[in-house]
């Protein structure tokens, strides 16, 4: 049953892409959206069935893809990622109807979103080197085309597309080389054959393959040294696409690491997984810092994706290290926490990106400094964006808290393990979890508070109106998911537990006791978020009652509306409000050496005298330190090499012939 459902899903998604390209303007948007929603549902059913029943299915056809044929197989690990993508895809396809209504997008735009969705559903099911690489590159191509929807209007979109294409291709080349080397030595290019031979592979080979594939998958997941495309591509892509990118495509980087590291190479060395954990630590801290410092909503969300992927990588790295160290049960728990956080991240990041899209759609700008006062104008979007923001800051009662608690618990239990290196890694992981918790909270209080509360700081924000119902349904669906998973995580955990056992080479025993809360099997600490929320509500009602019932004279009963207190000034304008830049300024000053903000202050004086400034303009840009330190020099060196090489062929036929002559003589001498 699951095979049929999964393939119906794929078929429907590609049909949606086809219809999106073919149908005339008005109907194609709706048709594409409906079909892709149906595709997601079918894929969800298929993946769900695999997850619940635990049996994998596999299909091989030699007709497609010359010379290699196509192998598809969906095991619980892959099914989890398909399910996560399907859930986000469902919300996105419903959202895209409303999003595209005003400026009906071109044929290419409506076609690429379902195509991108189809490839996202395909990648976890690929079961041979060739199929995986085809699906991977198709995903890169469709996401690039989707990113280019409004390349006509903005130069940054074209920059972003160029960066994105170059970096994904380099990543894909690394993965291709790694997998091909593996297939060559493991005799056979299907994952099953490779997995069967994983015992006979020599250590240096498996390490080289792991490092190469890690390079590729980390660049797709957005781990720090290779994350540079993420804060450029996500803000420029249309919101449904960036929601899919952050909610689903980034997960596939983690999927790749797990599939190659655990399934194909059989767990491998401990230092592999410590490298993954180190990547996670650096990404989490760097991402959280930059999220707290950026003032563009989508750029903030992109950096927080880097942060959350860092947390997931810490989990995956710790799990791998523990598994390599022999503690299977604990590794299962930590991996469960990492995958649960991944699913939660897909939900709340998808909801946030759709919210940011609604903001841009209604208020015409993404810059937090020019928003404000939208809570009253767009209450529903404010509630959904708020739910997403609070759950990403891991506040109790929402899904962020549940998965970060599980991750914290797993890492904590790991301290009992013997090897000092693992303990050091776990300590770094917990410290990062702590640091990023505070920074993420700051970033999202800024996004929520400065963006939605106070007075509108631009006429666009002032004229903002609530977005269409379809967009609200999209956001609501994901926000609802966050709340439900927050209150009763026990519903989803057994399913993820089965994916974890499939994920780890030696499989892991049940990490979770059944029940609605988070009850760990291996150790007696457990938490019941449901009860926490219940207690919170009871306390809330009691406090509200206490204040309400206080004896008060009649006319003081209802709260009075008065001008906000501004030290007696009567003219309280929006310009006096705090902006996102000034909100993040103290944090930037504290972490100045990492963020390296560059300010430029121009004071133009009046003609008459130097002492009376006419206008003071202040610009501040926090650009990516990694990009400046790592990428700029590399690009400069390549450009220098290009100019040097250009001077060699100067057009004279004698020089060309001289090349040939020299080679001929050299060859003759060598062969003599």
């Amino acid at each position, binding site marked *: 049953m699951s095979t049929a459902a999964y393939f119906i899903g794929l078929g429907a998604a590609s049909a949606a892409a086809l219809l999106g390209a073919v149908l005339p303007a008005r109907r194609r948007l709706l048709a594409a959206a409906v079909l892709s929603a149906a595709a997601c549902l079918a894929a969800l059913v298929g993946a769900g069935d695999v997850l619940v029943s635990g049996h994998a299915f596999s299909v091989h056809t030699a007709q497609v893809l010359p010379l290699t044929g196509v192998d598809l197989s969906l095991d619980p690990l892959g099914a989890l990622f398909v399910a996560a993508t399907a859930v986000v895809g469902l919300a996105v396809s419903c959202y895209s109807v409303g999003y595209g209504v005003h400026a009906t997008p071109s044929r290419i735009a409506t076609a690429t979103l379902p195509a991108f969705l189809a490839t996202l559903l395909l990648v976890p099911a690929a079961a041979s080197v060739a199929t995986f690489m085809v699906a991977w590159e*198709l995903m890169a191509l469709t996401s690039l085309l989707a990113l280019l929807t409004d*390349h006509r209007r903005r130069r940054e979109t074209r920059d972003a597309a160029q960066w994105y294409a170059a970096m994904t291709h380099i990543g894909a080349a690394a993965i291709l080389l790694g997998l091909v080397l593996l297939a060559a030595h493991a005799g056979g290019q299907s994952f099953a054959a490779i997995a069967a031979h994983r015992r006979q592979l020599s250590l240096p080979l498996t390490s080289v393959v792991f490092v190469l594939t890690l390079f590729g998958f980390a660049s797709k997941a957005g781990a720090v040294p290779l994350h540079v495309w993420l804060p450029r591509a996500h803000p420029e892509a249309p919101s449904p696409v960036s929601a899919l990118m952050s909610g689903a495509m980034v997960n596939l980087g983690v999927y790749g690491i797990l599939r190659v590291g655990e399934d194909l190479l059989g767990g491998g060395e401990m230092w592999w997984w410590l490298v993954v954990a180190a990547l996670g630590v650096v990404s989490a801290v760097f991402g959280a810092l930059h999220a707290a410092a950026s003032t563009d909503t989508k750029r903030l969300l992109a950096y927080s994706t880097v942060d959350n992927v860092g947390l997931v990588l810490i989990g995956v790295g710790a799990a791998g290290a523990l598994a390599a160290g022999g503690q299977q049960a604990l590794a299962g728990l930590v991996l469960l926490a990492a995958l649960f956080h991944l699913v939660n991240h897909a939900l709340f990041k998808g909801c946030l990106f759709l919210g940011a899209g609604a903001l841009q759609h209604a208020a015409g700008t993404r810059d937090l400094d020019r928003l404000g006062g939208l809570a009253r104008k767009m209450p529903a979007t404010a509630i959904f964006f708020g739910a997403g923001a609070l759950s990403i800051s891991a506040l109790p009662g929402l899904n962020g808290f549940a998965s970060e608690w599980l991750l914290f618990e797993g890492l904590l239990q790991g301290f009992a393990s013997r090897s000092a290196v693992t303990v050091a890694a776990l300590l770094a992981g917990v410290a990062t979890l702590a640091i990023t918790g505070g920074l993420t909270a700051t970033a999202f209080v800024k996004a929520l508070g400065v963006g939605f509360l106070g007075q509108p700081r631009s006429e666009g924000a002032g004229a903002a109106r609530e977005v269409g119902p379809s967009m609200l349904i999209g956001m609501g669906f994901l926000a609802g998911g966050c709340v439900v998973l927050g209150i009763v995580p026990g519903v989803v955990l057994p399913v993820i537990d089965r994916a974890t056992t499939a994920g780890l080479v030696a499989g892991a025993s049940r990490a979770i006791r059944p029940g609605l809360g988070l009850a760990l099997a291996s150790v007696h600490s457990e938490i019941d978020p449901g009860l926490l929320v219940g207690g919170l509500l009871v306390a809330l009602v009691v406090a509200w009652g206490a204040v309400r019932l206080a004896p008060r004279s009649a006319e003081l009963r209802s709260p009075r509306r008065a001008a906000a207190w501004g030290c007696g000034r009567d003219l309280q304008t929006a310009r006096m409000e705090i902006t996102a830049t000034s909100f993040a300024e103290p944090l930037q000053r504290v972490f100045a050496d990492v963020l390296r903000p560059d300010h430029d202050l121009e004071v133009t004086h009046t003609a008459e005298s130097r002492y009376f400034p006419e206008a003071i303009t202040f610009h501040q840009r926090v650009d990516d330190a990694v990009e400046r330190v790592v990428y700029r020099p590399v690009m400069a060196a390549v450009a220098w090499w290009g100019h040097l090489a250009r001077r060699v062929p100067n057009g004279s036929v004698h020089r060309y012939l001289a090349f040939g002559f020299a080679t001929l003589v050299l060859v003759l001498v060598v062969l003599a």
Partner: protein
Amino acid sequence: MLLVVIVSVPLAAGALAAVLPWCRAIGWAMALADAAVLGLGVVLAVQTDRHRAADGLDGLLRADALSAFMVVVIGAVSLLATIQSIRYLEAEIAGGEHSARHSSLYSLLVQVFVACMLAAVLSANLGALWVAVEATTVATTFLVGHRRTDKALEASWKYVLICSVGIALAFLGTVLVYFAALHVPGHPTGASVLDWTSLMHDSHRLDPGVVRLAMALLVLGYGTKVGLAPMHSWLPDAHSQAPAPVSALMSGVLLTVAFYALLRFKAVADGALGPDFTRMLLVIVGLASLLVAASLLLTQRDVKRMLAYHSIEHMGLIALGAAAGTTLAIAAVLLHILGHGLAKAVLFLASGEILLVEGTSEIDKIPALLARRPLLGGIFGFGLVALLGLPPFSLFVSELNMIRGEAAVGLGWAAGLSLVAMAVIFAAVMAHSRHLLLGGPTASPSATSRLVGIPLVGGLVACAAFGLSAWPLQSLLDAAARVVVR
């Protein structure tokens, strides 16, 4: 008998073009001739697939699965090119630059060019193969100089000179092989000494020293015609100055015909020396061409030169693939030859159209092509996607399997270097094409004529089809690969 027909059809068309004054009907006749060649190629492929080989003209022509495949490639690319040259010639005559007589000379030379290539591919005798390849050089010289500009003259001089020297070295190599064959006891003497089948039969008895020197000369000699590293400098000049259909034909299929010759000699040399010597040679030459292409693509300012350097890169990849030498690698090389032929032809024809319509082929003088000419921009964009080796198109599958072949044979490091070069080239081409294709709408979008659009889109669709479904080619590729590999 079939082989003679294949070679003579284009010759007949050429003769027709020479006699009658040029008009659109003649153009379509040329196209029809090449379509016939393609059809006959397919028939030949089906025939050779069932039983080993067909031969004609009392032993001079011989076709096995490999040459049948090459005939199909030549047919397909020349069909695309001749359809496009109708538009090219009409635009030229309309532009008043050249007379109708000039166009009929053009059509004759093109058909002679196609005939020479077919002869080269179908010849049984390696000497005849050399003669045919030399004839193609002669035929294309005037085609390169067709536009009568100073640059075209300079390009044709360089083209003829470098290629003739290269080909002379190749002849020296052929002579050495002939010398080695003469001294094999029991080898058939007389006309059929250089017959490929007999050489393959006695290849293990050839003298290794002589064959090693011969193979070095052959790789260097034919490498010039293939555009491989040391003697590649003529390629960007010739392809950027030649009219678009001609450069499409040359880049798409002439380079690969020369590589076909190398493949034939490699089979013989492998018999005599074992695979390691030729593998080392081809790896060095392949990596050198990749390095040259990667370095020079970084700062390209002209569309056609960019595409020419891109051909050097793909020839380097094909050399690496052939160096691996397993059946999988050779099958991938052949698929790559077909894919590259189609994609490169489509791109050159599109750049020709850009040159005609925009008046210049400088990248920074043609901004926002997608906005101004959606169909042409789209074709050029998807052509680049195909050329850069992205999935739906067959170049991705062939590159993937070539790298698999190389890794299987222990050339993993070479595959790694080639991937690095391809990544650099990808970034460079992406940077150049970004300015060319993307950008704001300066003027209202104008349509591109159907005559141009349909064949090019057809070429891309074919390239994608060969990339996705294995049906028509799989058996032909395997048969052709087994022909070359011991």
